[in-house]
C-alpha cells in the first residue's frame, strides 16, 4: 500500500513531457486511452508508474516498471540473471517489462485456494525468451504480498562444478555440498529476514555430539547454525525445507510460501560431479537435490510452486530443446504432473517497440542508423524479436 502512495506522489511531481514516438505505436496509444482513472503518464509511453505487481493489469503489457532499489537488495540477492544485473548497474535502475506470462501466473495466484495442495506453474519457451525474468517478476509479486520466498536461482549450479563434495553424515549413501548450501542459506536469510524470528521449529535436530537445535527455537537460529557450521549446512537446508513444508499451510503459521526454482530440468537430469573414483554421481545421491525434489512435490498446501525450464545451463541436452517433456524427461514430467504450463514467447510487436524505446531513452543505442526506421527493421530481422538476442545485439562490443 505504501508503494502505491509513493508512486502516486512521484506521478504528481513529474513535470516534463517527453515527445511521444508516433510510428507504429498505435497499440500503446490505445493503452494510454484505455486507462482514464489514472493520470496521463507524462514520462513516456513505454514506462508505467505502477511498480506493485499486484496492481498491474493487461493494459500495462509491454510497459516497463521500475523495481524499487530496496526490493532489489532484499528480494533478489541472487535471483536476477547476470546480464540483467549488468544492465541494472549501467542504467542505474532495474526495469522489468510487464509481459503476459507473468501476468497470467499472478492472476492465478490471486484467485487460488490456498487450503488445497500447492499449484505448480512451469515457464517454458525457446532460449532467451524471458523465462527467468517472468519468474523474477512473479517472485517480486509474492514478496510484495508478504509471502515467504524460497528462491533457487539456478538448480544447474548445484549439479556441476562442485569443488567440495562431502559424504553426508545423516545418510551415508548421499553427498553434501557445503559451499553451495551455505551460500544459499545466506541469501535465504537476506530475503526472509522477517520470518526467521516468527517461525518456530517443530522437531529437535542433532548436528553433532555437542550441537543440536531444540524444538521451539526460531528458524533464524537454524539458519545461523547452517551458515556458521559449514559442514552441516546441507542438512540444515533439508531441515529448513522440512519445517517450512510442515508449517506453510497451518492457520497459526499465517504465512504463505512461494517456491521458485529456475532450471527445473536439473532435478531430473544428469550431473557432471564425479566421486573420487571417477564414477559419476547421480542426482539422488546429492542431499540438496534430494531435498529440492521433496520441496517441489505438491504434498503441502498454503503456497505455490513456480518453476522455469532452462536449456542454457543444462547438461547433456540438445541446444534446440525447449519443450517440457523433452527437457524434463519422462521421469521428471511424471513427477511434475499435474502442472500449469505457461509459454513464454519472443516479443510481440508492441513489446519490441517498447524495448526499443527504452533503449533509446537510456541512450543505449548510439549508432545514428539505429534511430531510423531501416535500423529498427534491421534489429527486428537480426534478433527475430528474441529478448536476449536483442539485448546482445544492442550491447557493447
Amino acid at each position, binding site marked *: 500500500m505504501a508503494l502505491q502512495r509513493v508512486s502516486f506522489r512521484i506521478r504528481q511531481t513529474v513535470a516534463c513531457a517527453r515527445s511521444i514516438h508516433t510510428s507504429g505505436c498505435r497499440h500503446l496509444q490505445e493503452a494510454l486511452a484505455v486507462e482514464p482513472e489514472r493520470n496521463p503518464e507524462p514520462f513516456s509511453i513505454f514506462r508505467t508508474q505502477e511498480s506493485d505487481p499486484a496492481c498491474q493489469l493487461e493494459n500495462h503489457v509491454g510497459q516497463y516498471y521500475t523495481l524499487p532499489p530496496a526490493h532489489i537488495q532484499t528480494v533478489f540477492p541472487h535471483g536476477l540473471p547476470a546480464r540483467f544485473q549488468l544492465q541494472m548497474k549501467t542504467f542505474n535502475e532495474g526495469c522489468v517489462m510487464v509481459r503476459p506470462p507473468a501476468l497470467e501466473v499472478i492472476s492465478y495466484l490471486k484467485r487460488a485456494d490456498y487450503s488445497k495442495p500447492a499449484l505448480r506453474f512451469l515457464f517454458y519457451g525457446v532460449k532467451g525468451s524471458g523465462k527467468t525474468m517472468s519468474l523474477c517478476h512473479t517472485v517480486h509479486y509474492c514478496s510484495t504480498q508478504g509471502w515467504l520466498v524460497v528462491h533457487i536461482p539456478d538448480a544447474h549450479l548445484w549439479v556441476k562444478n562442485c569443488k567440495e563434495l562431502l559424504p553426508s553424515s545423516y545418510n551415508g549413501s548421499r553427498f553434501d555440498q557445503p559451499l553451495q548450501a551455505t551460500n544459499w542459506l545466506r541469501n535465504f536469510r537476506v530475503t526472509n529476514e522477517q520470518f526467521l524470528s516468527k517461525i518456530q521449529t517443530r522437531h529437535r535436530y542433532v548436528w553433532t555430539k555437542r550441537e543440536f537445535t531444540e524444538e521451539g527455537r526460531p528458524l533464524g537460529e537454524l539458519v545461523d547454525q547452517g551458515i556458521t557450521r559449514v559442514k552441516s549446512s546441507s542438512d540444515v537446508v533439508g531441515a529448513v525445507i522440512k519445517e517450512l513444508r510442515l508449517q506453510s499451510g497451518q492457520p497459526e503459521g499465517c504465512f504463505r510460501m512461494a517456491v521458485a526454482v529456475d532450471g527445473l530440468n536439473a532435478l531430473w537430469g544428469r550431473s557432471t560431479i564425479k566421486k573420487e573414483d571417477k564414477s559419476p554421481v547421480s542426482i539422488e545421491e546429492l542431499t540438496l537435490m534430494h531435498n529440492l525434489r521433496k520441496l517441489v512435490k505438491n504434498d503441502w498446501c498454503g503456497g505455490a510452486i513456480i518453476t522455469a525450464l532452462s536449456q542454457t545451463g543444462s547438461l547433456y541436452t540438445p541446444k*534446440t530443446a525447449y519443450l517440457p517433456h523433452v527437457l524434463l524427461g519422462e521421469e521428471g514430467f511424471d513427477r511434475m504432473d499435474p502442472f500449469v504450463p505457461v509459454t513464454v514467447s519472443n516479443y510481440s510487436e508492441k513489446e519490441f517497440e517498447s524495448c526499443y524505446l527504452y533503449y533509446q531513452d537510456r541512450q543505449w543505442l548510439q549508432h545514428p542508423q539505429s534511430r531510423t526506421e531501416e535500423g529498427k527493421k534491421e534489429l*527486428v*530481422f*537480426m534478433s527475430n524479436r528474441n529478448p536476449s538476442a536483442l539485448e546482445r*545485439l544492442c550491447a557493447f562490443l
Partner: protein
Amino acid sequence: MAASCARTVGSLLGKCGTCASNINTITSRLSRQICSSSALHRKNLAAAGPEKFTVEFIQKQVEEFNIGKRHLANMMGEDTENFTQEDIDRSIAYLFPSGLFEKRARPLMKHPEEIFPRQRAIQWGEDGRPFHFLFYTGKQSYYSLMHEIYAKIQSLERQQDRLRAKGLLASDTTPLSLGSSRWIIKEELEGIVMETVTDHDYQRFLQLMARLAALPQARAEGGWVLRFRQQLEAQASRQAVAALQADAQGRAFSTAEGRRKTSNSSVVLRDGGSGRATVNGSELLSYFPVFQDREQVMFPLQFAGVLGRLDVEAEVSGGGRSSQAGAVRLAISRALLGFLSEREVENMRQAGLLTPDPRVRERDKPGQEGARRKFTWKKR
C-alpha cells in the same frame, strides 16, 4: 648421355687418324651426323624472342582454315556458305568433347588472325631502303597515325572556312555523338600500331583525337573515329533474372539457387509477408547463431530495402556455417532480381551481391604439409 658418349666415340675416331681414308670419311660423316645433335649446337632459345611467321605462312594458314571450315560444315551437314565462327565453335565442341577445366587448353579452330600474333611487315626493301618516310623516327605507324589525325583536322577546318566564306555555314550542326563508349587504352593502341607506345605518346594521341571529335563537322569522320573507341555494355543487361511467379493465394514469389565453396542453397522469396526468415525449417536465429552469418543473409534484403516485406524460405546443405551463409546470400540476391527495377539490379551487381565467390579450397600438394605450408625446414 648417349649423345655425349657417341660424340666422344666420334671424336675419338676422328682424332685417331690411324684408320684408312675411307674409314676416316665414314667415321667423319658418322661423327658429323652424331655431333650435329650434340649439346654444343643447341640454340639459345631465350635470346631468339617470339617466333616469327612469314606472310606466306600466314596466307597458307588462312587458306587451310577456309578449306577446313567448308569440310567441317559438310561434316556437320550444314550450309557451307553461311558457316559462322559460333557454328565452328559449336561443331568443334561436339566433335572433340573435352573435360579440361582450363578453357584455353581445349581444342579450338579459329581464324589464323586470332591465333597467330600480329607482326610487323618487313619495313625495308632488298636494297635496304625503308618503305615509309617516317621509318627513321623509330615509331613509323604511331607518327603516321598522328599525321593522319592532324590532316583530317586540317581538312575539316578548311572545309569549314570555305563554307563560312560562301555563307553556307550550317549553324545547327550537332557534334559527333560517341555514345556509351570509351577511348581505347594504351595496350589497345599498341596492338593497333604494333609498336611500343609510351605514356606521353598515348596522352598526345588522346588529346589529338579529342580535338578531332570536338570539331563541329566531325560527323563526316565519325566512323573512322569510332574505330578508336570501345563500346561499354551495361553489365546488368546480361543478368539472368528469375521470373516472378504467383502461388494459389495470389502472392508473388520467386526461386533461385546459390553456391559457395561446397554449399548449395535454394531460396523462395514470397511477397506480402512479415519479414520472417526460415532456414531448413528452423528459425534464422536458431540455425545461424553467429551474428556474422545472419548479417550476410540480411545484406541483400537490407540493400534492396525490402526487409519487412518479403518472407524467406531457404534450404541449404553442405559446407560449413560461413559458406552456407554465403550460399544463402547469393540465392537471395538472385531471387530478389525479379522484384527490382533494372537500375536497382545494376546497383546490386556493383555492390557485388550477384557475383559468385570463386574461392574454393586449394588442393594439397605432395612434398608439403598442406596447400602452402611446407614441412619444417631442418638444417641438417
